[in-house]
């Protein structure tokens, strides 16, 4: 029973006396959605609102056409800098499953699967804090994937990684998508956006300026701001 | 989460066992509230073992100033009281907290001071003369100031000498609010005179150049008594053990033992219990 589509109805988020984000849209299952825009456009806020880490000042956010039924278990998020728990790699992956009371044998099997798919099998017993940046991000992905979410939010997941790690992370994201999870992701890397996206949401100064499928967005952006951004002109 | 829970249970189990341990199972015990002078002199370490051996009763001594010891006994936190201030003792019995005041033993107070003796009290015969000289020359005097038996005795002497120390407090007259030992330490460090019981002084390990400068005045007589806490007032008092202890102290065994206690070969306490029989 999927929790999608996600609808944001006349949602606004205000802080410090300013409106930082306004939007009215829905997100359906299907290919990945990229959220693009310059710094300060409100991309992170958008993700956090969707995920439930922030509450909207106005409007409401609903899952699957109904009022918010706290669907935390069917969605997950990966942050730009992943937070590692002070325990082994395997224990990190098992964490989400443990707190939701998944029984031991099922848990162990799923952890093993994830270790395999993220290429971290050999590091299973090591302390998560001893992993490299790229490995930690793969672990964060695996940790989220283990929950078998309907939707996965990612906030600039490869921003701090070297090209090799970035490639590994992108592969995992694609695998997650193929397994049936909807991906909603922000990025500054336009090449990455082209590689992974199905459709694009473009934000500028807290407003949704454009939404289109990936090919059309990159070839002929309709809004002035999007065009400038793609040319590398808008920096803030 | 399970870890936190089981840790908490373990903690509770430990706490429960501590409470069980506190009740002290089969051992017979008795709580004696007494003064620092009897404890610090080492009297109890000498006096109690024979009693404990012959009766199997462990005596737990709480050494505090006379005032505090009486307070403990009034609250029912002790079974037997042994102090050395007659008026307070009589009031204790009159107020219904004690069964009977039994004179037990006596010794005396002495005035100690620095070898230099700036007030020149050595050679005087009476304590009141000595106190007068000290006040006149404004030599430093350390008082216990804690309403103990020794302190009350000291107050009595000032009164007998007709000296009012009110204005001198903080000047040459230093009120410490401390036990005998702490007062002696301070007196030695300050080069002050002080009043002390002979036994505590004899056992004191930090005399430096201080010495006894005046002794022998009848006013310095120091009487100790032992009183059982009245079970009509405090029903939980260990009546049987208390009777045994008081009887033993007043009878020949206790009295002889007190007589035998010596420091550096000198007898410190002189037994003077009344002969048994009704008054």
């Amino acid at each position, binding site marked *: 029973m999927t929790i999608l589509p996600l609808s944001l109805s006349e949602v606004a988020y205000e802080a410090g006396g300013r409106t930082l984000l306004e939007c009215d849209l829905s997100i359906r299952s299907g290919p990945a959605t990229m959220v693009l825009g310059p710094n300060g456009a409100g991309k992170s806020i958008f993700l956090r609102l969707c995920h439930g*880490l922030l509450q909207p000042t106005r409007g409401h956010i609903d899952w699957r056409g109904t009022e918010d039924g706290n669907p935390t278990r069917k969605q997950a998020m990966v942050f730009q800098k992943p*937070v590692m728990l002070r325990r082994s790699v395997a224990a990190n992956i098992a964490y*989400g499953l443990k*707190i939701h009371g998944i029984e031991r044998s099922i848990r162990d099997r799923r952890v093993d699967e994830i270790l395999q798919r993220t290429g971290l099998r050999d590091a299973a017993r090591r302390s998560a*804090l001893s992993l490299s940046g790229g490995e930690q991000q793969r672990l964060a992905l695996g940790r*989220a994937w283990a*929950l078998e979410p309907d939707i996965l939010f990612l906030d600039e997941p490869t921003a701090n990684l070297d090209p090799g790690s970035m490639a590994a992370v992108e592969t995992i994201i694609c695998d997650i998508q193929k397994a049936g999870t909807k991906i909603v992701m922000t990025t500054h890397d336009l090449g990455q956006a082209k590689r992974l996206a199905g459709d694009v949401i473009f934000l500028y100064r807290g407003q949704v300026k454009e939404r289109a499928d990936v090919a059309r967005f990159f070839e002929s952006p309709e809004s002035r701001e999007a065009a400038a951004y793609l040319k590398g002109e808008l920096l803030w | 989460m399970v870890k*936190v829970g089981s840790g908490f249970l373990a903690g509770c189990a*430990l706490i429960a066992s501590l409470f069980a341990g506190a009740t002290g199972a089969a051992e017979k015990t008795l709580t004696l509230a007494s003064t620092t002078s009897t404890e610090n002199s080492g009297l109890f370490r000498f006096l109690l073992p024979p009693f404990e051996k012959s009766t199997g009763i462990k005596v737990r001594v709480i050494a505090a100033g006379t005032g505090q010891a009486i307070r403990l006994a009034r609250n029912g936190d002790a079974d037997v009281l042994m102090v050395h201030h007659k008026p307070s003792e009589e009031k204790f019995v009159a107020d219904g907290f004690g069964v009977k005041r039994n004179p037990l033993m006596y010794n005396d107070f002495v005035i100690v001071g620095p070898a230099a003796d700036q007030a020149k009290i050595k050679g005087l015969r009476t304590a009141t003369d000595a106190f007068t000289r000290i006040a006149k020359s404004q030599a430093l005097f350390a008082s216990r100031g804690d309403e103990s038996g020794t302190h009350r005795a000291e107050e009595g002497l000032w009164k007998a000498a007709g000296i009012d120390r009110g204005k001198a407090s903080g000047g040459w007259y230093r009120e410490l609010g401390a036990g005998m030992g702490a007062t002696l330490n301070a007196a030695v460090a300050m080069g002050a005179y002080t009043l002390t019981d002979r036994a505590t002084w004899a056992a004191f*390990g930090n005399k430096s150049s201080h010495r006894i400068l005046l002794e022998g005045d009848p006013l310095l007589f120091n009487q100790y008594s032992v009183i059982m806490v009245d079970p009509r007032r405090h029903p939980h008092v260990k009546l049987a053990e208390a009777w045994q202890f008081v009887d033993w102290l007043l009878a020949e065994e206790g009295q002889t033992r007190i007589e035998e206690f010596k420091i550096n070969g000198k007898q410190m306490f002189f037994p003077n219990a009344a002969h048994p029989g009704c008054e």
Partner: protein
Amino acid sequence: MVNDFSSAFSLALGLIADFDPALGEIVGLSLYVSLSAVLVAAVIGLPLGAALAVYRFPGRKAAIVTLNALMGLPPVFIGLTVYLLLSRSGPLGALGLLFTPTAMIIAQAILITPIVAALSRQISETLYETYRDQLRSLGAAPLDIIGTILWDARVGLLTAVMAGFGRAIAEVGAVFIVGGNIAHFTRVMTTTIALETSKGNLALAMALGIILVVLAIGINAAAGIIADASGATEDTR
């Protein structure tokens, strides 16, 4: 002064070398009382601190300020209060706990629980800042979060517990009043030091003090070793 210290040192060494049984008795009781108090304080204070860090409720700021202030409770005041509670004339007199080691444990536990809780709160809050979004994202409920923070912050929290222990083993005001310094029963290191000082046996008192300090160092060193061995070392990158 140098003379006093050196004679105190040789006295201390002598006492230890002889395995002086009287010394063993008071050291044993000191450890029993203070370690028990620390256990109680840890069981209550560590989760309490973490809960204060994680839960948001009206009056939270006031609760934190109060908790921090309670760290400064004078031991002698606590001793007096516990005495009044446990005295036969007091509300809990029927328990017969006064002048027993249990009373001393109670008094010391009251003394150090605020320290452990306040430090736990500070340490937990720092870690919670980092963990909050990630843990909530993974679906952790507040109780889960408390457990995770307590485990992950275990090295820092051990230091908090050691701080409590240090305060307990070193204090004399509370244990003197509620314990009564009864020979072979409620006499611990600090009350013995006080007693020997009052008897003018300054070298012996110093020697005991030195032994107490060495003991405290030893226990803290052991705690440090345990912390390292638990594998909770910092990020090695």
